[in-house]
């Protein structure tokens, strides 16, 4: 995660108080927007699962990991570009999530929160261990033909792959929002999230809706993983960090809507971009920043920035 922050900001080594120019500020803003949108993708599936099922899915990081390694495997073995292979990765992760929910989590959905919390943590350990077994704990990265290319306006540099990832993240947020609002299935998901028992009385198959929701959450996590492995080197120990981040982002943005994840991602990206630039702090305090931010938000605005009573 250190890597993520450092590479996102090539200008960090400059002293903040000296070379502050309009161009530098523009570059910081661009970096912030790109990083923030990527974070939105990281948290989107987590937010959906939490909002609809009231499950804090600690296996989210493991799904991101599986997504990243699927993309890596497809790229090295089948020569499929990570961005073009995104639907494939998402489909695979959807199936994985669907099965996990149907076989395991549906059985304890009424238990106290500690049980689901612990269960998803166990699944996280299990999945991460299997990934490590298959791919070893070496760092992996993907170098496509276009990595390193980008738009350059004066000294302002916008890397092409990061721009594409940010656009896809926003697109996924919009697509999820539209799906939930405009389709029958999406409405069924929302109804289940609002009142499980009433939804059942309306003839909705709760177990399938839950499996579908969890599958969607896993697919979105897989998309985030595939984009992350394209942008940063990756190893199997990084899953947990992303779970913690997703939690903080969702708390920041609020549980209410998919757009909450985007808002939270942007706020989180802002903190991570700007705080290390402040004199006397420097890089390396990512987790401390994340945690401090979350506690502040929980104290002052427990519902988050765009928080609502239910997912809609």
């Amino acid at each position: 995660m250190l890597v993520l922050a450092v590479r996102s900001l090539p200008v960090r080594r400059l002293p903040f108080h000296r070379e502050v120019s309009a161009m530098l500020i523009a570059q910081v803003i661009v970096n912030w927007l790109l990083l923030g949108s990527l974070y939105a993708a990281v948290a989107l599936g987590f937010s959906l699962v939490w909002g609809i099922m009231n499950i804090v899915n600690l296996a989210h990081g493991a799904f991101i990991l599986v997504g990243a390694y699927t993309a890596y495997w497809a790229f090295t073995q089948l020569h499929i570009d990570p961005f073009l292979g995104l639907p494939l990765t998402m489909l695979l992760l959807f199936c994985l999530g669907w099965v996990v929910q149907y076989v395991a989590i549906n059985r304890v959905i009424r238990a106290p929160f500690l049980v689901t919390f612990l269960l998803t943590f166990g699944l996280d350990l299990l999945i991460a261990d299997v990934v490590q077994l298959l791919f070893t704990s070496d760092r992996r990265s993907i170098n496509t033909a276009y990595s390193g290319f980008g738009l350059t306006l004066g000294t302002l540099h916008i890397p092409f792959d990061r721009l594409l990832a940010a656009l896809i993240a926003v697109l996924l947020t919009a697509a999820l929002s539209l799906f939930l609002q405009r389709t029958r299935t999406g409405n069924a998901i929302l109804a289940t999230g609002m009142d499980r028992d009433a939804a059942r009385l309306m003839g909705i198959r709760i177990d399938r809706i839950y499996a579908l929701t969890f599958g969607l959450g896993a697919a979105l996590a897989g998309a985030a993983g595939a984009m992350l492995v394209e942008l940063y080197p990756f190893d199997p120990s990084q899953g947990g960090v992303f779970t913690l981040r997703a939690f903080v982002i969702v708390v920041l943005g609020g549980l209410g809507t998919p757009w909450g994840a985007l808002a939270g991602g942007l706020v989180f990206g802002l903190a991570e971009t700007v705080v290390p630039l402040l004199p006397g702090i420097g890089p390396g305090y990512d987790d401390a920043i994340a945690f401090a931010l979350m506690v502040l938000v929980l104290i002052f605005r427990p519902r988050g920035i765009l928080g609502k009573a239910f997912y809609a």
Partner: protein
Amino acid sequence: MFGSWHKPSTSSTATAEPGAEQRPAQPKPGTRWPWSLLTGLIILALAALIPLSGDAATLHTWTLILMFAALAQSWNFLGGFTGYASFGNVFFFGVGAYSTGLLILAGRPFWLGVLTGAVVAGLLAFLLGLPVLRLRGHYFAIATLGIAEATRELVAIRNLGGSGGEVELPLPALSDTAFYFLFWLLALACFLLTAYLARSKPGYALIAIRESEETAEAMGIPTYWYKIGAFVLSAVPTALAGGLYAYWSTGFDPPTVFDVGISVEMVLLTVLGGAGTLLGPLISAVLFELLSFQFQISGSTFHNSLLGLTIAIVTIFIPQGLVGLVQEFFRPLAPGMSRRQLLVEGVRRVRRAIAANGV
């Protein structure tokens, strides 16, 4: 703690069972408490005989078993009795380890380091509890997880005790048997404290908070301060264990003593045994750690998979814990039932308890 209270809000059977009113009266609170106490004391007394075997590997294994028994039991004070599930209790373990390590490096005796660690951890639990115990459920769990993770990062960056937070200690002056009995004493102290809590007013107050915080508050229990008290109570033995571990292991770094896996193991052991029960954490610490060591001895690297798989099986099939399952099996029935009927009824109840949390 068999049957000394029943948990109507969290027990799966109570909510999912339409015929609950036909059930015979609950056992009187605490009728099985002396038996649980006795069983626990017998287990600990047997554990005290382990050093007689003279086998260094067995002693090592059982030292860690007792350490995890102490850790799980101290997690139980807050997570089991009070219902606030902390996923960052390893923070206090690390605080104990680093206090001890740094004081030994400064030339102080080791007992001073361990005691300082306990005091520091108690103070930190009090100060952190003030904001964090206002959070509930998921939020409390993640906040504690965040504290532990952020501290691990800070210790490594600040190079506490050595480069990257790595601490090298001189060889301990105590023998392995002495360490074993120190951990044994800690586990015994935690067990007696649990037994006290299960039968005393402060303990009832904590249970009341778990069942309904609002009701407890309305009954005149100062819930906030009781929660902070439970947090401190759960922090101090954890720090003592951390301090002992530091001196015993002669060297440690942030990833070992702030390992989130230790936090999760405390939770798992308590849930596996039965959260809020007297015997649960002790029994499951012995069972699970023996199983886990069996896997490690056979040279496999699947410790995390084993942990994950056990967690999945425990949470799906016995979320109320081993003690809860036994309790469900032996719940008193109407008089005049034959042994066979009792067995069938017991098995039926256990199966219903297992299936009760589904969609």
